[in-house]
């Protein structure tokens, strides 16, 4: 299976380990990624909050590129990129005038035919394959699956899973041998959009998420968005109070990779600010007894 791949700016920089772990699990799970040539930034928060047309056009440029490169389905692992691409596709499909405008500016024959997929939609159909390939798996590691805001919302755009009671990420990590915990804040926003310009807000929101996950007994947080990851990993020390235990934050692809028995190095686990060393030890041999002890 060959799939168009839109890495977005983060996966080439702050979230390089997301890119790396995604590519690492592609082989064992039997999918192939074809990176969109000459892609540009989706526009992210700054575009849609200040200029709607700009937001649509920046995203549409990439959809049009995909179309011209013969790609029918684009997977964007970054939740923000996914949301921007999917929103543009949705809006153009429902607004003829906007579609005409987009075509004028892009000077091409853009038919808006490219489907946009999230990392969840890619991996959920692979759960049985993950389960088969994950021998020892994650050894019952208790994880809190964090969806955040844009993977599922708004439902008209994301068109995946139950927007208020999703289960896809839990199904995926369960297949990799983890035990997803039940917790309340998995759909709440971590505030990443204001990470740089209003750090105090982000610390407040992130702290509530970490507290809730820890209270539910999670040993790690699993995310599918580089913004969430940067926020909850990089800023975690600021979010915690003195003496509070740190909570490793894994990309979904890293969790799956660990479950598949891939080397932590291949998955970029050393790149995190919050150390994953103890966690890696926990899921490699002897982890089961550690789990029972905890």
């Amino acid at each position, binding site marked *: 299976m060959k799939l168009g791949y839109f890495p977005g*700016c983060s996966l*080439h*920089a*702050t979230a*390089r380990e997301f890119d790396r772990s995604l590519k690492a699990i592609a082989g064992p799970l039997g999918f192939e990624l074809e990176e969109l040539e*000459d*892609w*540009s*930034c989706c*526009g*992210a*928060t*700054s*575009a*849609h*909050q*200040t*200029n*709607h*047309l*700009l937001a649509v*056009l*920046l995203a549409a*440029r990439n959809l049009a*590129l995909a179309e011209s490169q013969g790609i029918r389905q684009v997977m964007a692992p970054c939740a923000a990129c996914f949301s921007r691409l999917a929103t543009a596709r949705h809006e153009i499909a429902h*607004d003829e005038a906007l579609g005409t405008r987009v075509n004028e*500016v*892009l000077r091409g024959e853009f038919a808006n035919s490219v489907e946009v997929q999230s990392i969840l939609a890619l991996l959920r159909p692979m759960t049985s394959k993950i389960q088969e390939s994950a021998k020892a798996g994650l050894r019952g590691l208790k994880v809190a699956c964090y969806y*955040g*805001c*844009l993977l*599922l*919302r*708004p*439902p008209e755009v994301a068109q995946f899973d139950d*927007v*208020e009671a999703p289960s896809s990420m839990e199904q995926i990590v369960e297949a990799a041998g983890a035990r997803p915990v039940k917790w309340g804040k998995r*759909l*709440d*926003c971590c*505030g*990443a*959009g*204001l990470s*740089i*310009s*209003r*750090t105090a*807000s982000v610390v407040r*929101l992130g702290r509530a998420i970490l507290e809730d996950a820890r209270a539910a007994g999670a040993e790690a947080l699993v995310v599918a968005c580089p913004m969430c990851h940067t926020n909850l990993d*990089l*800023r975690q020390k600021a979010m915690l109070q003195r003496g509070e235990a740190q909570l490793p934050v894994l990309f979904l692809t890293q969790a799956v990779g660990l479950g598949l028995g891939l080397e932590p190095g291949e998955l970029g686990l*050393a*790149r*995190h*600010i919050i150390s994953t060393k103890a966690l890696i030890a926990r899921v490699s041999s002897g982890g089961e007894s550690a789990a029972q002890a905890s």
Partner: protein
Amino acid sequence: MSEHESFDGSLAGEVRAATGLNVSACYQCGKCTAGCPMAEEMSLKPHQMLRLAQVDSRERLFEDDSIWLCLTCETCTARCPNGVDPARIIDCLRELALRAKASPPRRIAAFHRSFLEQIRENGRVFEFGLVANYKMRTGDLFADVTAAPGMLVRGKLALLPKGIEGIGEVRRIFATCAQAARKEGR
């Protein structure tokens, strides 16, 4: 809804013309505010923003920082009982505020400008350039300095931008949008 409403000069009419959304459909139940992660920091809550849009009180809306605190997490939109789509409306209010020459909170404005400039210059965003640009604009030189070394060591900050071939098209997109905004801003 009559077509004339879009042109009646009201804020609700402008929102409708830009988004196709009906501000009048908001019955002020407050479910948006109830679920908003930023509500406690906003002086105007999401339902109040919609109310002020209904009664055409653009000065109060545009003078206030609150519209700029919305994270567009879409919780309000997903749960709105009457299909109002507050997140999209707030985006639209921000755009109208900019056209009305209202200024967003300094740091937020600086971030958005830095971010978009990165895209316009390189087609992609490079965090190092972004942060440097942002710091220049805000003069906020010491924020996050503690984070940067750790990020550099872990290869998280790319130092040099890599351009794209289609940068001409990206710049044309920016030019088109800037022109459209000037025209509609009158």
